[in-house]
């Protein structure tokens, strides 16, 4: 954690609407280098919209959003050059091989001498044996791992994960969790949007709870849990989540 560092992700007063529907309303938060922010909230809370706007895929309605000091509206190319985004359902190019995906990303992001880094990523994600296979036949988990490898190839300073563990086997989950920690240790600012509250609780340093497009809670994970600990001992993130969003959890008796 590095509170004094200049934030790598900065979102200020961000609002996004679709016709009359307000997807995100006056959202503000920031993530410093080395921090991992857990973005949680019920379905339709505005998590994916926030990540998509931050990655320059859709334009914001209003507000200021910057990635590594570059405004996402005024200077989108520079911002995207330093950003890696893994969507919840990564769309790969069906007719390209695993290795060709990495070659494509290297060409698009102008990564010189990418071969050794790409080889290491394939090794790390256990995809070496599939190097020359087209992605069409790969399992959901393998496709997910390839999408993450593509996002890591250009050494981004900001990484946005939307439900990163979908379809992964236990070994894959462990590898990706470890890689996230490693990237954060190296100074990357990370946002993980997930419904897996256990994952968020163990991995993230900070927490942002979104509900109906609005921030209900933002702060250091320890602080958030401690705040709720006053009412009940051994509070988990699950308790905090249901308490904040007033969603109906299972009866605990």
């Amino acid at each position, binding site marked *: 954690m590095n509170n004094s560092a200049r934030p790598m992700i900065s979102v200020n007063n961000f609002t996004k609407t*679709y016709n009359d529907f307000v997807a995100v309303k006056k959202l503000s938060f920031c993530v410093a280098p080395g921090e991992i922010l857990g973005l949680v909230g019920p379905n339709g809370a505005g998590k994916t*919209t926030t990540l*998509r706007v931050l*990655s*320059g*895929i*859709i334009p914001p309605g209003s507000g200021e959003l910057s990635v590594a000091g570059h405004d996402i509206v005024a200077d*989108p*190319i*520079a*911002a*995207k*050059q330093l*950003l890696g*985004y893994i*969507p919840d359902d990564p*769309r790969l*190019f*069906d*007719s*390209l*091989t695993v*290795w*060709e995906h990495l*070659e*494509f990303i*290297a*060409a*698009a*992001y*102008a990564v010189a001498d990418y071969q050794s880094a790409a080889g290491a990523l394939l090794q790390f994600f256990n995809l070496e044996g599939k190097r*020359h*296979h*087209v992605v*069409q*036949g790969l399992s959901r988990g393998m496709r997910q791992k390839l999408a993450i490898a593509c996002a890591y190839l250009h050494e981004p300073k900001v990484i946005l994960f939307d439900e990163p563990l979908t379809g992964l086997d236990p070994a894959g989950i462990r590898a990706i969790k470890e890689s996230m920690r490693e990237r954060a240790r190296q100074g990357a600012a990370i946002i993980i949007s997930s419904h897996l509250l256990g994952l968020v609780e163990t991995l993230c340093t900070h927490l942002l709870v979104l509900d109906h497009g609005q921030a209900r809670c933002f702060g250091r994970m320890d602080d958030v849990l401690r705040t709720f600990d006053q009412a009940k001992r051994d509070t988990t993130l699950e308790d905090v989540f249901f308490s904040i969003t007033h969603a109906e959890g299972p009866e605990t008796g």
Partner: protein
Amino acid sequence: MLVKLLWLRFRGGVRHRFRELKTLRGLLFLCVTVAVIALLMKQTALPVHPPGAALAEAPELLRGQLARWMPAGLLAACLLTVLTAPGPAIHFSPSEINLLFSAPFSRRALLLYKMCFYAFGALLSSLLITLLLPAVQVMPLAALLGAFLTLLFIQLFSAVIGMVSQRLAASVAMPLRRGHILLLLVALIAMLAWYISGAGTGLTDGFIRFQSSLTGILLLAPFEVFVHIFLASSMYPDLLRWAMLGVAINAALLAGIILLDRYSYEASIAASLALHRRWVRARRSGLLWGTQPAGRVRSFRPPLVIPGVGAIAWRQLLTALRTSGKAVLVFLALAVLGGPLLVFVAADISVWSRIGFVFFVAIYLLPRTLVFDFRSDLECMETFKALPLRPWKICAGQLVAPALLGSLIELLLLGSATMCLDGAARLIALGLMPFIVPFNLLLYSLENLIFLFFPTPLVPVGRVDFDFLGRTMVDFAVKTSLLVAGCSLAAGAGMLALDVTNRSWTAFAIVAWCSLVLIVLALLPVLSWAYNRFDVSRQ
């Protein structure tokens, strides 16, 4: 229960069509479809008379032409259906396989259910055919019945051929079906070519010679029955007699399917799933004829790692090679053969008809096949939007593959035609060659521009899809108008140069070519703007 399912599906289909009509777009497309059908009906109802024929004789002559060409057309349709079908049997959707195959229904009941389903689709198509061809009909009822029985026959015939091949392949352990059908097709074309070359006076005379030969009579006999139904002039004896024969042929084929089904049951499931996957892919990517590679493939490194345009173009060229390599090869081969065919064999067809045919291939058929741009990347737009590349680079990169492949095919066609031409015609053909690449860049810029505004792949969802029909017509009309406008502008600039330079055709060509290139370049910012405004969250 299966009858109830048929009824529910029919109701669902009608509900879906009506829901489409509730939107302004759906209503607009329906109006366009109805207007175009009405225009076509009016056009075909007019006494279009072949050259040299008197106005009063025109319908008779048209019927004569139909009677001559329809059997061969039906044979070709049957062979094409067998060739393009992914498997040997009647196809069931994955939901039918999941829900009906495990339910307590006999296989025969399932086959009859599917036949009813096909028959309903054939009935809708027959209605459309009857509406569109009033000029060649003697009795509308005969035309409707003829079209209906013919469509059923094509479906049943191809299923039986597929099943017989499957049965033979299982007993002699050798791959049959496609290879043999292809061989038969090649033999037919060779035979036809032999008759045409013997006749020496063009396509029609050669075909008449073939048709009256013993081989032609035997080969086309089953198809003649359906022509007689379509053109029957009286209820009795004509229509009734031929219709009974047609029904008997179809019933015999259906009995054959029921008998042969047990040998191809598993293959039928595999083929059904393959067909479904192809449709899902087509709806997703717009690639109707594309195949999807799987497993290990030979990798091609990018020749030059150019950030931006190069990366996008390289990726699309790889997609073209892997998904549509065979289709492109077929087009290239047809282009090489097409030139001489258009010049010599079709000599009895007017020059304008031949130019019209080439124009249709270039601006409709090829763009529907060479879908290696934004049109096949609807699902990957999120990926493109996240790339650190300027929109114009992404747009320019997307145009390279289709424009390059389209130009290659057209250059080959024009080149092969040029070899057979002489004099002024050869000069004109040679002069057109440099315009092909900018023309295709303009064409695919417009294709992509329209797609970015209306991002839905042009693939029909079931029969009588008004949305699809309307969209196809509007798309074709808008594209053609814009293309003609662009080319007219370039030609206009060339004419000015011609006037200024005292009739220098070289100056005309240079100025027209530069103008066309400038129009393409001017379209790039428009395309980039359309790409920028494309909102992935609304898809």
